[in-house]
């Protein structure tokens, strides 16, 4: 198992990539980030037609996933899986939907806000954008990346985009589960810390 690529973004909309050592931003907003990042040479094909449909979390994950694929060298195989791991969960999205619904005197909710309450939605949007048709799921485990590596080692796809969403930023790694081992992967409490550790090794 080895890391084939990675990208992270901060709440200030600064993006970094692992292999290509890319540094982008800070961008004034996510639309500006999208416009600039999709101009990069070798950027893989991505369907971003629905970029505006999702909330900020969806768009942050879509852009970080896209940059991760770019960092790994281009288009991802169709069988690529997408796994969300730990992070902040959906409390903010749940509250947003519920306050909106109760604020309308419980007469009607907004479907778009409701759909966003599922923790898999940002990862599914990333899968749609990049054409990943493997397994997609969200898992919360103890704060140990070793547990994530264990799950991936047993999983059926040979490549997984793994993501972690927090208020402080989004981090994604492309894990090649079928490739030759590049040594043990770091066991740290957050994917962002794994990213930083790998950045330091590169």
């Amino acid at each position, binding site marked *: 198992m080895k890391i084939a690529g990675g990208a992270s973004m901060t709440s200030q909309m600064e993006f970094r990539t692992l292999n290509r050592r890319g540094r982008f931003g800070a961008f004034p907003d996510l639309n500006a980030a999208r416009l600039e990042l999709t101009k990069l040479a070798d950027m893989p094909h991505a369907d971003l037609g629905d970029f505006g449909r999702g909330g900020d979390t969806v768009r942050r994950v879509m852009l970080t996933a896209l940059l991760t694929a770019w960092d790994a060298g281009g288009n991802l195989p169709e069988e690529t899986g997408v796994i969300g791991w730990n992070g902040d*969960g959906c409390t903010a999205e749940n509250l947003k939907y519920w306050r909106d619904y109760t604020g309308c005197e419980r007469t009607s909710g907004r479907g778009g806000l409701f759909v966003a309450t*599922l923790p898999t939605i940002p990862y599914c949007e990333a899968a749609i954008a990049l054409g990943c048709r493997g*397994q997609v799921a969200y898992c919360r485990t103890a704060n140990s990346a070793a547990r994530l590596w264990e799950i991936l080692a047993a999983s059926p796809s040979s490549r997984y985009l793994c993501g972690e969403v927090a208020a402080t930023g989004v981090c994604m790694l492309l894990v090649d589960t079928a490739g030759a081992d590049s040594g043990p992967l770091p066991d740290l409490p957050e994917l962002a810390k794994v990213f930083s550790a790998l950045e330091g090794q590169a």
Partner: protein
Amino acid sequence: MIERPVFILGAAAATAFGTTLRANCDALFAGRTAFACPRHFDAKGRVLGIDPELDNGPGGSRSERLLLKLRDAVDFTIPMGTHLFAATTVGAIDRLEAGETVDTAREFLHTAERVFGCDGGTLVSAACASGQTAVALAMRQLRQGAIRRALVVGGDVASEFVTSGFAALGALSHSVCRPYDAGRDGLTLGEGAAALLLGCDGPGIGMIAGAAETCDAAHITSPDLSGRMLAAACRAALGDTVPSGVIGHGTGTIYNDQSEVAALHTLFPSGMPPLFSLKGNYGHTLGATGVLQIALGLEFSRNRQLPPQVGLVSPMEHANTAAAPRTLDGGRLLSLNVGFGGLNSAVVLEAL
């Protein structure tokens, strides 16, 4: 490569029909439904699959009462060191409705850890495919030898939060759901929980013979109507075997059922095996449904019978479903889950 079998060492369900698999099966074969107006919130005249026992009783919330009821239903020993996989969509959403700012899915996991005495569990969320996705994850961890025993718990309660959300999407039936019926008009929500104890040392009461998941990567709420990637998941789970029956996801929405039947028709062009959905009896139990399908599927497999499809008036084209019980020619069953985001899950099970 021959993969290690994964055995089902115990199964339990906690629903409106009771806390034994037998009671649940009897209700299904009698064509009973759990549909009623909820008393714990204003559903605006809609009926849901309600378990009235969850209205009151021990536990600080409906979701905790659901897990306590499931614990009472568990008639097998959970060995020390068993790894818990908790499957849910919104978890302890009733606590958020009550004004608490909590991570509702994480609260569900923590409550399940406490109720079943399993520390350090894994929460699995894959929309309405959460239950089977958790089973598949557990199966792979067991096969790999990363864990020795897995307890998969799936559950969700009926809530105003989810009801209003599906209403906003226009996905709810105007009456009650009618899975695989030509006149179906939407889903009916439900509530319940189920549990499976899995391990590699059998024989146990059944086995998980295969599992696979895919993503349509097409649309965030609508399934790919061709059923292409659901069929791919079924192929991967089945290998070269043919099931004797299918427990479908069968929500009763126009698109879900169309996509499922298209996938099954692609797989079995000369005639699909008998098809049945629990949703006609319980409503859509969300994170519970996949685990419940497997738990009850063991009974169907053992008895070589599928229950009657409740609500069926005129089966949709190509759907091999019936309003009467069906006799199966074998015990191997295919169980399907489908979820928002284009998530597909197929599990193959058999009673031993």
